């Protein structure tokens, strides 16, 4: 792994909301091609950690770099275009059609022409079986459909890394499978990802590394095999006992 390029590096990241300290010094490196699953009890700071990376939350202190460039308020827009994000609540743009959701950013940011973007969007929509929804507004889609559109919307920008923030937590059990399948495909295509999830089986399946966060700190990390079968800390043993 270390011979791979460093995509994201996080140094002593701290984040507090007023007096509530959510992240208490996180050091972390993400290398090209890695599939990192972030686990932890609720309220442990997993989502905040992810959201600090693309600065949806402004870190209180610490440093985050993307491909050796320190992310700052100055370059954040450029960085976000390379860091895709998939949200728990999908966040498709309500006033835009599915097609417009996919093409807005790549066209606005001059990644491709309107024609190219539409062609690419059609390919992706066809691939996920939602081409018939191209002209529909998000309100008419089911949760699972929305999330799959949200994933291909992120792919439209051809990001270097994709962050998934509990992508299946707001879905009904039936559509979880479809979404996980799509994430699996994205992973198989070689995308570097970080995913916060509560789907343990899925985590075991796709992770190249598991990171366990509690109390705003990384408590333990390792390969899924080691993490799930031979946890090193009492805290993780306790957690796994509850969730498995």
């Amino acid at each position, binding site marked *: 792994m270390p011979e791979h390029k460093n995509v994201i590096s996080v140094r002593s990241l701290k984040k507090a909301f007023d007096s509530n300290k959510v992240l208490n010094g996180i050091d972390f490196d993400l290398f090209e091609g890695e599939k990192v699953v972030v686990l932890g009890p609720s309220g442990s700071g997993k989502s905040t950690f992810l959201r600090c990376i693309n600065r949806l939350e402004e870190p209180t202190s610490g440093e985050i770099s993307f491909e050796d460039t320190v992310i700052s308020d100055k370059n954040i827009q450029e960085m976000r275009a390379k860091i895709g994000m998939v949200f728990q609540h999908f*966040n498709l743009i309500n006033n835009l059609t599915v097609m417009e959701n996919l093409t807005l950013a790549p066209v606005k940011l001059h990644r491709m022409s309107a024609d190219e973007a539409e062609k690419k969007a059609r390919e992706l929509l066809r691939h996920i079986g939602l081409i018939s929804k191209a002209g529909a507004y998000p309100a008419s889609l089911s949760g699972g459909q929305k999330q799959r559109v949200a994933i291909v919307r992120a792919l439209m920008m051809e990001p270097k890394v994709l962050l998934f923030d509990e992508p299946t937590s707001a879905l009904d059990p039936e559509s979880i499978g479809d979404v996980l399948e799509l994430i699996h495909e994205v992973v198989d295509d070689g995308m570097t990802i970080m995913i916060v999830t509560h789907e343990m089986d899925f985590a075991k399946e796709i992770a190249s590394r598991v990171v366990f966060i509690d109390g705003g700190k990384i408590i333990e990390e390792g390969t899924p095999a080691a993490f799930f079968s031979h946890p090193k800390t009492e805290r993780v043993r306790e957690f796994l006992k509850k969730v498995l």
Partner: protein
Amino acid sequence: MENFFDKIVELFTTPEYIDSLLHGFLLTIEIAFFAVLIGFLLGLIIALVETGKSKWFAPLRFICRVYVTIIRGTPMALQLFIMFFVIFAIRDFPQIVTAILAFAFNSAAYCSEIIRGGILSVDAGQTEAGLALGLSPLTVFHKIVFPQAIKNIIPSLGNEVITVIKETAIVSMVGMYDLNMAAKDIGSGQNMASYVVPMFVAALFYLAVVYLITFVIKRVEKHMRRSDARA
């Protein structure tokens, strides 16, 4: 009753009366139209300042707060007097401009509150999705937040337009010849010597405009709701 209808016929067939009425009506519409337009734009700016995240906005935000508080806390008629007899107490300064500004400044405060509420009603996830894609805050506002905010506030904005139209009637207090004043003038002793009919007709004029605007707003709202499941 017969007398009433005779008077109505008289009002509509006497060129002098009907001219006065239309003249007044035109002034009412002119003041309301420009006041709403300027008021909305000013209100939008105030709302942007108030909802803006930047630290640099802090002093501006304070000024906006004070402005909105003063405007909303004092009578419109008093604001009109202040504009006429204090701020624009300049000889030969066009009265209509003073009146438009008075109503625009007033409406801006109300519009800003409406627009601010509309902006805040848009789910934060919408903004986050736009930002996460690398779009600029300006693009996010223009393409995502504003269209959704407007949709939510169309009914309130419609109300504000209607309020302004009717409130312009107080310009008669500073001697301007609007629809309200025209009705009073036509009904006075020197003219018809009956207030009932001209005031009844003036009321119909106001009502017709308000009804028309309500109708247009309903259509606009329906059009904008096409992206909703509720449509």
